[in-house]
């Protein structure tokens, strides 16, 4: 970090970085395919994540068709149904959300927003993407393998995940899933170290940590968490592979399977659950924190107002990140672990609600006395708040150990986590794409198509998941291929299932509008210019749009102020870029 003498007047000379430091592409292949430019890698990550996400979207249609019209579609049998839910869950959580937020937005935004030329290890960054692609291909290979993909549920709980009563348990399915996760984690680690080191070491002169936009804070904290959490999943996957292939018994006690004594003994299935959720709970925030950060910047920019309580927002991100490592067993209240753990984990879980609530308050207080432009990014931000508040509040039911007992393993849980870590982050992704698309492509997205997509997605997903909580209250369990005749489930619940399925089909179709918009606007969109939203942060101050390799031309930017100087009293315009020198030298990190 560069020391800045306080009180020095006028502009500070920027640090010049010699051009030779970056590897400049020499051919089409090294420019667009095996590229070491974080911006190209970001686009590669994003397109791959969206492509595999579309597969998961189609899987959700198929499972919803089965729930609404059981028995009507002959090709959806129990095997397929469980394979669909498993692959849908794993793809959405890991291969779409994690990859898109960190690999996609992280790669594009970190170097630009902190004023670096690129990630600090461009070659490892390139490898990270190609290894991620390999992981996606291994995962997708499950669909074509004998026996199909695994149907163990995305949590992959042993022993059933490796036994014959589960699709793919004794075939290729579970092997491909575990291998794909291992490869993904290797690839992610290469990218993740890059993001962390770039934030810590690659910032432009004047860009102190407490001047970074919240987007960078969110992605940075999430990456640190991912680097600490993924190893737990890594070892769990390796141990399960050993159990399945080498006959070890890490997770396998004595078992009688279909009348036959297996050769395992002494292992602990619940050990896997602890390892899985030690990764799995931070994973929720690995997805949520980048969304928190990005949405803060969307709200601030489009309400033309500084984010309210910046320092509190930074600390809330850090505190949430830290606390999320000591709440994992709230996924295991009825797992059979020592019930005394319930006291501890319920307490930590509900404590985490406080910094999370602070973030929500600060978002809506940023709107207060703002100058709210209802642009697409702002609409998505508003929709995010509604969805996130709803999903966050139902988390207080499930986190409070005794309330969780009747609700766990029911559709209430499905509704909750889709609201809070499915729909809410996806809404931020859409908002973020609308916000940064002009920087990436130089053109604006089509507003009409954007509005159609926004309203269908926002209201449609709310109509899907809000009523679903009530099926769970009624007692309908999750992961049921069909309810069959169950005395306590009235026919009206079935009608609700049909309604939810119809909405899911509509919302899914609306995503095609969005994809069409992405392609159409690339050629026909309005020219954006360098800074269409009149935003303060560094990525909008690049000499070219889209930014060239190396981002900044000859001179690196120098940062004089925090990222939120919107509507400063007395200023000529309603925004002051971070690069604008202040009268009398450096401004304070956070204005009083």
């Amino acid at each position, binding site marked *: 970090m560069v020391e800045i003498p306080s009180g020095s007047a006028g502009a500070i000379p920027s640090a010049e970085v010699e051009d030779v430091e970056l590897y400049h592409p020499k051919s089409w292949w090294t420019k667009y395919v095996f590229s070491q430019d974080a911006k190209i890698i970001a686009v590669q990550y994003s397109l791959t994540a969206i492509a595999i996400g579309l597969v998961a979207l189609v899987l959700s249609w198929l499972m919803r068709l089965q729930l609404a019209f059981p028995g009507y579609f002959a090709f959806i049998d129990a095997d397929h149904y469980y394979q669909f839910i498993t692959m849908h869950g794993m793809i959405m959580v890991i291969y779409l959300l994690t990859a898109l937020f960190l690999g996609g937005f992280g790669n594009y935004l970190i170097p630009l927003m902190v004023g670096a030329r690129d990630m600090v290890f461009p070659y490892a960054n390139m490898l990270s993407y190609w290894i991620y692609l390999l992981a996606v291909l291994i995962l997708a290979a499950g669909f074509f393998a004998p026996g199909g993909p695994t149907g163990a549920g995305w949590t992959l709980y042993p022993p059933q995940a490796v036994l014959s009563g589960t699709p793919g348990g004794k075939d290729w399915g579970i092997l491909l899933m575990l291998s794909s996760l291992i490869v993904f984690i290797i690839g992610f680690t290469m990218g993740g170290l890059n993001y962390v080191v770039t934030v810590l070491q690659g910032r432009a002169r004047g860009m102190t940590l407490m001047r970074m936009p919240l987007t960078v804070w969110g992605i940075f904290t999430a990456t640190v968490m991912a680097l600490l959490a993924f190893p737990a999943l890594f070892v769990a996957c390796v141990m399960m592979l050993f159990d399945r292939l080498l006959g070890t018994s890490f997770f396998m006690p004595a078992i009688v399977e279909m009348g036959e004594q297996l050769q395992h003994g002494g292992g602990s299935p619940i050990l896997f659950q602890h390892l899985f959720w030690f990764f799995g709970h931070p994973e929720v925030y690995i997805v949520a924190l980048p969304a928190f950060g990005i949405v803060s910047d969307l709200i601030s920019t489009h309400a033309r107002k500084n984010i309210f309580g910046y320092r509190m927002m930074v600390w809330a991100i850090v505190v949430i990140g830290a606390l999320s490592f000591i709440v994992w067993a709230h996924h295991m209240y*009825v797992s*059979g672990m020592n019930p005394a753990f319930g006291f501890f984990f319920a307490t930590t879980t509900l404590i985490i609600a406080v910094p999370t*609530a602070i973030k929500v308050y600060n978002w809506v207080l940023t709107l207060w006395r703002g100058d709210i432009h209802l642009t697409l990014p702002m*609409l998505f931000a508003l929709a995010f708040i509604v969805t996130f508040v709803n999903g966050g509040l139902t988390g207080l039911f499930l986190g*409070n150990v005794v309330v969780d007992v009747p609700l766990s393993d029911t559709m209430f849980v499905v509704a909750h986590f889709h609201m809070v870590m499915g729909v809410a982050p996806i809404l931020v992704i859409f908002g973020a794409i609308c916000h940064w698309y002009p920087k990436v492509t130089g053109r604006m997205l089509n507003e009409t198509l954007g509005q159609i997509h926004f309203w269908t997605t926002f209201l449609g997903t709310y109509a899907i998941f809000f009523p679903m909580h009530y099926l769970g209250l009624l007692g309908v369990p999750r992961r049921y291929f069909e309810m069959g005749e169950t005395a306590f489930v009235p026919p009206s619940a079935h009608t609700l299932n049909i309604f939810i399925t119809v909405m899911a089909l509509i919302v899914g179709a609306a995503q095609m509008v969005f994809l069409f918009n992405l392609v159409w606007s690339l050629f026909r969109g309005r020219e954006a210019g360098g800074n269409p939203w009149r935003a303060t942060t560094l990525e909008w101050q690049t000499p070219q749009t889209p930014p060239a390799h190396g981002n900044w031309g000859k001179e690196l930017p120098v940062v004089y102020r925090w990222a939120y100087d919107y509507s400063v009293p007395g200023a000529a315009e309603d925004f002051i870029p971070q690069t604008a020198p202040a009268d009398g030298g450096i401004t304070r990190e956070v204005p009083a």
Partner: protein
Amino acid sequence: MAVVLILVLIVVGSVLFHVLSPWWWTPIASNWTYIDSTLVITFWITGIVFVAVVSFMAYCVFRFRHKPGSQAAYEPENRRLEWLLASGTAVGVAAMLAPGLVVWNQFITVPDDAVPVEVVSQQWLWSFRLPGADGKLGRAETRDVSPENPLGLNKNDASGLDDVIIEGGELHLPVGKPVRILLRSVDVLHDFYVPEFRAKMDMIPGMITYFWFTPTRTGSFEILCAELCGIGHAQMRGTVVVEEAADYQTWLGQQQTFTQLMASGEPRPAN
């Protein structure tokens, strides 16, 4: 303005849906009314917060949406307000957590007079074991499971010889008597779940898990499996019948003990 209207409609619609929805929990059949009460407290607190936050947001959009010439205020921080909101939230959270922990303590503290009842799960069948005249369940292990001895009882443990064994049938329980449900699985994870009892717990091969409750009304209730256990998960059903003590004794007298089961030598029916 459409945005404001829709935000308001979401608030009103959600509240109306909650009030008018025909989907609500099943009539309770156990002592765990406290769980229901804690849930209702949580609904009130979270409901109020949801309505307040979204309404406030709708008001902000209504009042501060962009008009030509309007400018946003400049207020980076407000320490007092931030701490006030944080403390208010902490109080609300405590109001939900405290009763929750008190009820959890009851949930995990089994009364001394609770009668042990064992539930044994396998893909995809429920079996049950009740103590015989000695009031004790004998030892059992997965290693001892065989076609003749489907629940894997230890033949050398005398306290197990009079245990009543019910394979794949109905479990009967006397009304008003606390029971300690001991859960055992011989293959994969399962979860003993009767919505009307509110309580549920996973069953783990290699471990014995438990919960307790007191059935409070007679009737026949469906047992579901609530932990994914393979392709037969949704079909893994059973029945609990809660009845008066006299009826229960009659039923109990008709069931087979472990000794009788061994003597009959019949291999167990295929599932």
